[in-house]
């Protein structure tokens, strides 16, 4: 079975935010919830680089370890999903996540949190694939239709790659070999406990 991963090639990312709006568009994610975002370091200075970040669907996901209601699960494709029926909005996963992925809608005053929302790798949730209930709670399920996450599919410079980890690692290695530089696979060590040998 394929092990799905994300890889952002920081030498290609131009911070155009297509990944962010593609996600909003695909899942009608409301204002204030950002399943994906682009982070820029050294903004405006030599060495400026940007990376698109979302849930990385970690191996041994830290969010799952801390969840008091066990709402997380990992699919056969190694996508980390969660059940909004079980989630109690406690926020532990937000503190555990190395990537700041979990998001919470504000449901009332005094900062009480709603059900956690995060990147689903365009793979929906525990409901039946492609069902109305899944669509309403998690957005569209592209993976079940044989498509990859829209953020990566629409990436303007093909910086953000999604798919089988071995294949995208290979694409990245070939790219680095051809161009002679690469700042590495951002977040892989943390998320997948491995790096890409260049």
């Amino acid at each position, binding site marked *: 079975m394929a092990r799905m991963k994300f890889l952002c090639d920081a030498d290609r990312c*131009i911070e155009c935010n297509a990944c962010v*709006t593609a996600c909003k568009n695909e899942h009608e994610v409301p204002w204030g919830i950002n399943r994906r975002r682009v982070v820029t*370091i050294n903004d405006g200075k030599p060495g400026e680089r940007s990376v698109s970040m979302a849930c990385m669907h970690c191996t041994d996901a830290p969010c799952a370890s801390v969840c008091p209601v066990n709402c997380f699960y990992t699919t056969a494709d190694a996508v980390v999903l969660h059940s909004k029926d079980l989630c109690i909005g406690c926020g532990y996963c937000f503190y555990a996540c190395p990537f700041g992925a979990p998001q919470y809608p504000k449901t009332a005053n005094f900062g009480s949190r709603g059900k956690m929302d995060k990147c689903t790798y365009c793979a929906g949730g525990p409901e039946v694939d492609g069902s109305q209930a899944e669509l309403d*709670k998690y957005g569209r399920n592209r993976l079940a239709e044989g498509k990859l996450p829209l953020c990566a599919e629409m990436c303007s410079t093909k910086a953000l790659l999604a798919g089988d980890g071995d294949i995208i690692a290979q694409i990245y290695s070939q790219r680095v070999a051809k161009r002679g530089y690469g700042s590495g696979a951002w977040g892989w*060590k943390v998320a997948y406990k491995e790096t890409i040998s260049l």
Partner: protein
Amino acid sequence: MLIKRKEGQASRGSLVAGLAASGAERLDRRAFLRRSGLTAGGVAAIGSIGFGAVREAQANMPKPGKPVEVKTNMCTHCSVGCTVKAEVQEGVWVGQEPAWDSPINRGTHCAKGAASRELVKGERRLKYPMKLVNGEWQRISWDIAFDEISKKMLEIREKSGPESLWFLGSAKFTNEAAYLFRKFAAYWGTNNVDHQARICHSTTVAGVANTWGYGAQTNSYNDIRNAKTIIFMGSNAAEAHPVSMQHILTGKETNRANVIVLDPRMTRTAAHATEYVRFRSGTDIPIIWGMLYHIFKNGWEDKNFIAQRVYGMDLVRKEVEKWTPDEVERVTGVPGAQLEKVAKQFATEKPATFIWCMGATQHTIGTANVRAFCTLLLATGNVGGSGMGANIFRGHTNVQGATDLGLDVTTLPLYYGLDEAAWRHWARVWETDYQWFFDRFDKTTAPDGKVTSMINTPGIPSTRWFDAVMLPKEQVQQRDKLKGVFVMGHGGNTIPRMPDMVKGLEALDLLVVCDPHPTTYSHISGRKNGTYLLPICTNFEASGSRTASNRSIQWGEQVVDPIFESANDYWVMLKFAEKLGFARQMFKNIKMVKGKYGDEPEAESILREINRGGWSTGYCGQSPERIKAHMKHQDKFDIVTLRAPKDAPAEIAGDYYGLPWPCWGTPEYRHPGTHQLYNTNLHVKEGGGTFRARFGVEYEEPQADGSKKKINLLSEGSYSKDSEIKDGYPQFTYGMLKKLGWDKDLTENEKTVIEGIGGNAPDNVSWAIDLSGGIQRVALEHGCIPFGNGKARVNAWNLPDPVPVHREPIYTPRPELVAKYPTRPDVAAQFRVPNIGFTVQKNAVDKGIAKEFPIILSSGRLVEYEGGGEETRSNPWLAELQQDMFVEINPADAADRGIKDGGWVWVFGPEGGSKARVKALVTERVGKGVAWMPFHFGGWFQGVDQRGNYPKGTDPVVLGESVNTVTTYGYDPVTGMHEGKVTLCQIRAA
């Protein structure tokens, strides 16, 4: 079914921690804006949604199990031309899929393209026609709108003449709508019709066309994959044309290409460059002459290319000699060694391409700037082949097409100009008497009693219309001042001197704004009456073609019906033409189809009319059928050459994608289009060509001793592949065919048409006005290009500063340089109004403005927004990413003024006490003494939030001050382009 493989230890991550640490002392632009909070007024309650759901159930999401239809259209934002695949279910656009087959975007988008679908959800769109009644917006019907507006238009015509109504069209139009709007103005009887090209690339079009024939991108985004050296000057493609970066970065990686960014601001494009050169805004010409100084000195120029294909390089050499490395550094701030390195790479690591945008064009010397760039390309032999050329990135989805189709105060469609021959050509195509047009126009009587018609007089450009409202009548060179403004698809915050523009708006009798959004015009002035807003649908709700920057034409299918009460451009123009009494003539040859509100003009039929008249620019071969076939077989086109192989389906075999103009002859002739202009390595029937012989056969060059020397302007020993004429030749006419004995190759039918057009002098009928296409066909069959084989010229003797010279900006931070490099003298009438740039510059120097306003203010684009920004700021998916108008200011300047990152500041302009209240973004992206603001904001004016002035429910999500509130005077002498990139300002904490 929850499967949790194993329990793991929570590991607090290194990545975010690492990022946070490296960014701790410096907030990035996003963090800055995030921190600025989600307080934008009118924003829907944040994430206030029902139990457990990511969102409320909406009609705009797909319903499982229902059939989905896929429609193909193009992104309506920049000029790259990304295909958009729309999934439609029960008449609703429910999803967007990657358009993998498009050779241009290969499935991808930027933030705007990926958010396209929202435009047609359009919660903040203008929903029905409205008018202002005593300062209140009232809903009206389309019928009432047409009745009232046309009545007022005719009143103005009666009282002040046709020239007192001014038409502003759009780069958002389809080709068909752009053409129709130009035609509309012609039938109304004025050349006062303009569009966004005025303020983006008018100087490019004028400067480049005056160098080698056509004012357009010579190659394509895809072709940059072939380049070994790439220069960006005044272009920030990473934000303005993000998808182009896919091709450019791939090329950079594959060829290990040099990517050199010359810009006053360290842009996001510069972040991906191999060399970044920071220079002072407005000193482009000294930079280029400084590079040529090293090139000539070291003999890196392409001597053979210059000898065969360029006129005037010796005159350039003389000018270049003045620009020693010391003088260049004194004026521009760039060290000689860095410029030498860049010059060497550009001249010797070939092919090299030069990319420019509005950083170069929006200047009082814009036309001269682009001619200097062309000179650099010509001197190094970098034009007319793969990986070379002037890759001019246009700004809007169809600004290339709208320019081509004549939304321009100086020409009829397709660059025919405004002379009698041009009018007679279009009168033939339109089957309307020339005399009829002549009679529609005002006449002016000169002091000597000579009567001239306004029919041949260029109109008032978009940068100056309010001067033509406010100046004394005797200073406006037409019967009366402007009384009415009719806008279709154009923001009101796009040009400098907004406080003056507001006064102009308030003085108008009639203001009509046709747009999907109310735009700045709706809220900025104190108008109480005589103002109409008409809801036009987006191009996703209409069909038609659009021309991308690389001259490829693509067909967009209507995705859904126009939403709310909006209607398409074609129908609105038809209705006005009916009310104004010229619909019968204007739509004589245009087929009507059933539309939302009844009969409307068919886009295909309009394109066929364009084909019938579009010989001058090779818009004649791109029939709707051919373009639609290209859309259907997108996957067959190569992503580097853009060509379909010979074994592709017959309807596209051998074609270049989108039949980039010129696509010669009739559609049946099956010319493949021209991917790379002026490429002599290809046969003309395969898209090859030469420089256009546009400037005559010979030039009498004035000499120092007062004599004149005759100089050959035709190319020497250079010709396109397999040309039967092995040397330069002039443009083709019937007479020339006869001389060559090639007239026998014309068919009887073609001869009849030519002789019919020519009347008494059929020999003068040229390739550009021959409606049979015979002259083009015969020339091509003999391996020759219809427009002749001339030299490019770097001495444009008919323009101001024939060889470009440096001139300081009107508001220069270096007043001591003005004596040596002054702006051009005042002109009493340029495009019907005075240009007093010299006086303004002199006053600024005399008054010591640079001391009081010591910071250079420049402007530019953000990736999330486009143009005036009403449309994109109304899209919550985009608006969320940029919630505040801001000014970038260097840390040193901020420290001097006690300005904190994220704090409010006032930016003061040097004219009329203008000011703008914005947030400060303290960053080294701009150098010391430089500030930069994005130009997409509006809705605030001099510190006042005008949200309440919009019709209810149509206010964009995000509002902010427009940079043009504080920008200033200054106009290019050739095109009237404004100075958008250099003015002065002062900044204080608010």
